[in-house]
């Protein structure tokens, strides 16, 4: 029996998405017309999601904070060139992902991980309980061990494969959106995802069935 999905999808529903996109368009237009305060609304709206993407790519909370801030500054600087052909969040994610990938490339010899605490209220207790039984270990000890193993496994993937996994499995974006963010076709996204999941399955074989 599969564990029920108790973790809510990060993305809002379709209707909310379209409402969100239209409100984004209004805010972007205001920023383009010189209303700097409108950009604050966009920052507050997307900072947690953008931080989450960058954090899961870098596995370092301090680096993730820096890169996210830089990404917002870059977005503000180039918002005049944003034509609205894609949604604002796709465009913002693209900036964030590119900033994270260049940060990883620049610091590939310096590997230092610092993790966020797992919010147990949000996390799936069913999964944790099942894992605790499976591995015959204490739930809280298992949580930190699992966090470490998951990050290790993600860091073993190439940056491009890691990005696809983070955007699809953790952030819940569609193949098309990921293709738009990464500047590649949907087919490439699917193939990268398939390969990355095979690798992860091998790294995490002690935990998954």
């Amino acid at each position: 029996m599969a564990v029920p999905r108790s973790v809510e999808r990060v993305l809002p529903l379709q209707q909310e998405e379209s409402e969100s996109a239209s409100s984004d368009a209004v805010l972007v237009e205001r920023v383009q017309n010189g209303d700097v305060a409108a950009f604050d609304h966009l920052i507050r709206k997307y900072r947690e999601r953008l931080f989450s993407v960058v954090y899961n790519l870098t596995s370092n909370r301090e680096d993730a904070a820096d890169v996210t801030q830089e990404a917002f500054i870059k977005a503000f600087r180039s918002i005049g060139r944003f034509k609205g052909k894609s949604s604002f969040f796709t465009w913002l994610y693209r900036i964030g992902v590119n900033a994270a990938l260049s940060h990883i490339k620049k610091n590939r010899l310096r590997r230092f991980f610092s993790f966020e605490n797992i919010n147990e209220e949000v996390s799936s207790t069913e999964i944790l309980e099942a894992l605790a039984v499976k591995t015959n270990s204490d739930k809280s000890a298992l949580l930190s061990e699992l966090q470490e193993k998951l990050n290790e496994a993600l860091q073993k993937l190439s940056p491009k494969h890691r990005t696809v996994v983070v955007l699809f499995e953790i952030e819940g974006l569609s193949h098309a959106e990921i293709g738009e963010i990464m500047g590649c076709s949907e087919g490439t996204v699917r193939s990268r995802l398939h390969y990355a999941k095979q690798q992860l399955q091998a790294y995490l074989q002690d935990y998954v069935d």
Partner: protein
Amino acid sequence: MDLNMANAKDEPTRITLEELLRLKRAERPPAEFWDQFEREFQQKAMQALVESESRESPFWSGVGARVLAAAPIAALFVAAASYLIWQPAFLSDGGEAATADAALVLEMNLSPVHPDSEIVVPEIPFEDVLAQAALSQRRTFVYDVLDEPGADPDRFDRVMASRTFQPVHAPHTIYVTEGVALTDSDAAATTYY
């Protein structure tokens, strides 16, 4: 139905990779993290704004344009000045004479002389000039290719001209100019009896 449910309860829970990865969504920073994030962001944004304004200000863009326009002239000036300063280094004698002359001229110009007083330039004897010229001439050495008596006639050895050598006018003595390959016709052309 009840049996199936009972079986399902007994079955151990299967965990998929996707479910495991979704645990990562629960990794969230505490609320106070965002206060610090906002403070840092405001600082960085302000810094970026100041930097971009200083780059784009009319004063600096005007200065930049003027600097760019004056760059070729400045480059020429620097080249001329460096040539004048380092001129001795370009001379064949290492610049010793020129440096000495320049030092003399400088000394003369800098010495507090009366405008009406006569400037005396020291004369250099002509013999000294000749001696200096002879020294600076390139020395050349001439080599001859001669055969050694009793050596293989097909082989030529290089013998330095300074070596004591008694020419013997014998039919087997061959004088050949340097660098000529030994062929029958060449040997005939360059052989003297």
